[in-house]
């Protein structure tokens, strides 16, 4: 607890700085794209949050596995803490994706496969948190949610390909793929990377804050329990 207490202010500060810098740079200093006009500026929100939405679920998966195998209580709490933050990232990615697509596709929601798979990911987040709320005994809640997270990840992956199979899709190609050459010339690229770091750190900071809250609430429950038993 005290370890994360010392790191937290630093992580939060750096996250804030990088995020603001990245968004500022992306919003004010980059030129318009010849075809998409100024909507290309939404890339600085859509891509990082989409990335964090997927990483968020992956992080919860790893935390659940650690809880099931090693019985570290904190990892179950990290998984519980990451869920709302991941869900918000998914929501932002959905909103920005829909708005960004609107001028091109003419409708707010064109059932594009990648956006739809984010919608499904959002449902998984919702179900996960609902399960946490439904169970009062923390120990069983941690176990059941971990199992749901693992099985859910497999089906989230399946849905990802099912949705691609279902509709060929209008989404622009991967605007940033590390293996192949840049699709986006570097005047857009640098602020994008900064934004991604910014969102990543913000995600981490938020998860740290929420985990500490969860740990404190468990401690509170234990103390109240002891008072009742004494």
């Amino acid at each position: 607890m005290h370890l994360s207490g010392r790191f937290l202010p630093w992580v939060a500060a750096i996250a804030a700085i990088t995020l603001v810098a990245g968004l500022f740079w992306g919003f004010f200093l980059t030129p318009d794209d010849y075809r998409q006009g100024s909507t290309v500026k939404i890339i600085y929100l859509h891509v990082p949050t989409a990335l964090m939405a997927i990483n968020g679920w992956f992080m919860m998966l790893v935390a659940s596995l650690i809880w099931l195998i090693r019985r570290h209580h904190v990892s179950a709490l990290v998984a519980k803490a990451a869920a709302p933050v991941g869900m918000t990232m998914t929501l932002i990615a959905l909103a920005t994706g829909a708005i960004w697509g609107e001028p091109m596709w003419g409708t707010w929601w064109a059932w594009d496969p990648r956006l739809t798979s984010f919608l499904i990911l959002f449902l998984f987040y919702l179900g996960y948190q609902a399960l946490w709320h439904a169970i009062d005994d923390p120990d069983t809640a941690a176990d059941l949610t971990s199992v749901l997270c693992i099985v859910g990840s497999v089906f989230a992956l399946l849905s990802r390909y099912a949705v691609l199979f279902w509709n060929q899709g209008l989404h622009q190609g991967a605007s940033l793929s590390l293996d192949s050459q840049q699709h986006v010339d570097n005047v857009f690229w640098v602020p994008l990377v900064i934004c991604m770091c910014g969102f990543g750190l913000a995600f981490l900071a938020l998860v740290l804050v929420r985990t500490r809250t969860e740990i404190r609430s468990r401690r509170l429950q234990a103390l109240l329990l002891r008072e009742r038993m004494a």
Partner: protein
Amino acid sequence: MELSVTDLACQRGGALVLQNLNFVIPSGRALILRGRNGAGKTTLLRTLAGLQPPSCGHIKVPPDSIIYSSHSDGVKDMLTVAENLMFWGNVFQKPYANAARQMNLDGLLSRPAHSLSAGQKRRLGLARLCISDRPIWLLDEPTISLDAASVALFEIMLRLHLQNGGMAIIATHVDCGVDDMILDLGPFRPVKQLLPDGFDEAFL
């Protein structure tokens, strides 16, 4: 064949209920659990049955030797008495005729279970114990809602089971005729609530 428990602690709903329990039951003997409501009799039986892991300590018991009978008899109302017994017969791959006779259910075999009285359902639940030839019986208030005749029947069945080298741990307030070893759970209340691997305790 024996059941030995060393330094056992069990919890219910995140809170410790029993602590540093030590006892050994040789074959052919029965242990009666006494204690006020909430002393942890059912929790102890469930931990021994393997339905819930102990908080600490361990239980040495040969595998597949335990049969557990809880407060509810697990009787399916839509099935007849015979079908209920046949089901448990198939599960344990054993004939059920002998068990039905022991708890004198022969007269009720064809009746649907929902028309049985609580006492008759209880007898049906107890008949399940005889079907399985498992040596260790874990009984939670077996004589509830049984009339005097049925209690006598149960005692005969229990004594027969013990004579064949079986064992039983019975949580009950009623004296059921075989009071070998009595264990009062009162003194095993947890003095110190803190335990490393309880979920909440880990945060103190």
